[in-house]
């Protein structure tokens, strides 16, 4: 029983998450309390879920990209573009009724999915390395977002827009439902259909999976489109939270946080395996880390140092070389890859 728990990919992320929450409880004994205020549930835990929503969404998209051995560096700028498109669409309408809201959501999600499609085409059809292909939009996307907003922080004067990120449904923040919906759709599609298997196959060996009859090009195209879509939703939530669009700073560093969340969740950057639940845990760990750092009064800038150390530790723990040298056991887990590397080092 304990052994199977230890083996579960979720074991360590959950322990770390609980540890961080316990540290919070130590500093603030009312940390776990959840109150009902104005018919809404409020409390630090709800707050973490609510504020972590964009990161969770983007990390879910990133997980599938990383599972195909890719990476999407453009999510941060897609967030900025999504917010900018949403805000500008509303600004261009008369701002009455719910029409502008749906127009803003539809238009920005459509464009963000197309942006993902562009990344996917570069990677799958032209065979450009993912880091490079998405780097183009990482550089240019922020320029485009600034172009859309005219370089200003555009404020939205339209109440329904605030519902996306700040609204409540059944006493819970609406953003949590968005995350839950996207998460369940992703889980259903990848675990209840063969799609997840295809994604993992493409990640471990695109050529072999193509020979096995999987349309690996379209699988890659699809995961980048999904990642763009998720970043679009996240961008709308973030922009709705502050009721404005900032082409310059919205989504800054988000690609790094998302990659971090995916890696903490146990998905290897080498592709071929992915854990959606782990990713959600990873995103929650990052969000509660941020909340903790704010609440115990350490300067917020320390956050970057902590994140850097966490990334290094997680990566070292994932590295077979490190495990062998430090812990002394040389169990070969992922034999193919391992043997290939051994071959290199031995020869």
């Amino acid at each position, binding site marked *: 029983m304990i052994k199977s728990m230890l083996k579960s990919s979720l074991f360590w992320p959950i322990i770390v998450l609980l540890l961080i929450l316990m540290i919070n409880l130590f500093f603030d004994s009312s940390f776990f309390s959840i109150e009902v205020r104005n018919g809404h549930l409020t409390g630090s835990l709800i707050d973490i879920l609510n504020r972590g929503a964009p990161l969770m969404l983007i990390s879910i998209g990133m997980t599938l990209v990383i599972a195909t051995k890719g990476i999407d560096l453009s999510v941060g700028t897609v967030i900025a573009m999504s917010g900018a498109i949403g805000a500008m669409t509303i600004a261009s309408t008369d701002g009455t009724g719910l029409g502008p809201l749906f127009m803003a959501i539809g238009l920005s999600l459509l464009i963000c999915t197309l942006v993902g499609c562009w990344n996917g085409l*570069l990677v799958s059809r032209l065979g450009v390395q993912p880091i*490079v292909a998405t780097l183009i939009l990482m550089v*240019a996307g922020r320029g485009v977002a600034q172009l859309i907003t005219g370089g200003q922080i555009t404020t939205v004067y339209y109440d329904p827009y605030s519902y996306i990120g700040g609204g409540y449904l059944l006493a819970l923040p609406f953003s949590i439902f968005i995350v839950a919906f996207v998460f369940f759709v992703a889980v259903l599609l990848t675990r209840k259909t063969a799609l997840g298997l295809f994604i993992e196959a493409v990640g471990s060996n695109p050529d072999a999976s193509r020979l096995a009859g999987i349309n690996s090009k379209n699988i890659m195209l699809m995961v980048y489109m999904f990642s763009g879509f998720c970043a679009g939703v996240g961008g709308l939530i973030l922009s709705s939270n502050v009721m404005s669009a900032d082409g310059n700073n919205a989504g800054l560093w988000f690609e*790094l946080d998302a990659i971090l969340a995916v890696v903490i969740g146990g998905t290897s950057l080498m592709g071929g395996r992915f854990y959606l639940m782990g990713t959600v845990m990873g995103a929650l760990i990052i969000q509660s880390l941020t909340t903790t750092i704010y609440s115990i009064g350490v300067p917020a800038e320390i956050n970057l140092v902590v994140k850097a150390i966490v990334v290094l530790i997680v990566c070292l723990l994932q590295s077979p070389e490190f495990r062998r040298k430090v812990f002394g056991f040389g169990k070969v887990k992922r034999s193919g890859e391992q043997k290939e590397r051994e071959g290199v080092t031995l020869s």
Partner: protein
Amino acid sequence: MINRLSLDYKQLPLLATISLFVLMFSFGSLRYTGFFSTQVFLNLFIDNAFLIVIAVGMTFVILSGGIDLSVGSLIALTSMVAASLTMEAQLSPWIVVPISLLVGTVFGVVQGALIHLYNLQPFIVTLAGMFLARGLSYVISVETIAIDHPFFSYMASIQIPLPGDNFISISVVIALIVVVIAIFIGHFTNFGRTVYAIGGSEQSAMLMGLPVGRTKILIYTLSGFCASLAGLIFTFYMLSGYGLHANGMELDTIAAVVIGGTLLTGGAGYVAGSVVGVLILGIIQTIIVFEGTLSSWWTKIAIGVLLFLFIILHRVIVLRSEKKQASN
């Protein structure tokens, strides 16, 4: 015959870069009065001296098939260390400069060691380095530290006169020395040849008995050192230390190296090309300044478009040379 042809293919991106630069400079000269002058050309070097220095370090990293995302943050950290040691610890520049240079070098050694010893991806290790360096500079101080010291003011203001009423700054001299040394290292030393070999195929390099591990660590050390040196030049330029200095500079650097004709897959490219790449980024900015009505974000869009075109060009070249190999 075949050998000569494949060499031409490798030089094609560099030729494209140089012609692009000439084209853009002539475009600017025809369109704006006062553009065609030696000083405008020299200003490209003066304003981008630090970018040239990091681009040189980055070229070696990318030639070896790696990537270094920490350089932008290392500039911020170096500026912060130099500023706080000078202003708060009141140390003499003779101590401050070596310590500042050591910061990036140590960062580079550690990153290189992690990448080589534990087989971690360069991308993720330098990503962590990027967080760490920026975080550490905030730990030193969240606020800007302005530098008011005779040595730094002297370095910032000195103008080296050139014939015809033109001048360059001391930073340009440093940058050009770095470029010359780097060209020498890249093309005439064992280290340089090993870098190209690793970029071509790490496994083959190892089978040839080349010191792959040592070279990889050295490459990142070199890049870290260049980032620190660039940080010092940047500090001369800004006369302050700040944790947000050079935000996103790593992307500009990678863009400059790619536009300069170095393949991101490694193995092919030239240090001199990266210098032209930096000049192209500089000239985009100059044209936007001369145009006057264009906003600053067009720089980013223009860089993105150029990056896209060059990546496609590289891709076509790689595909064609692969086809050639297959047909032989």
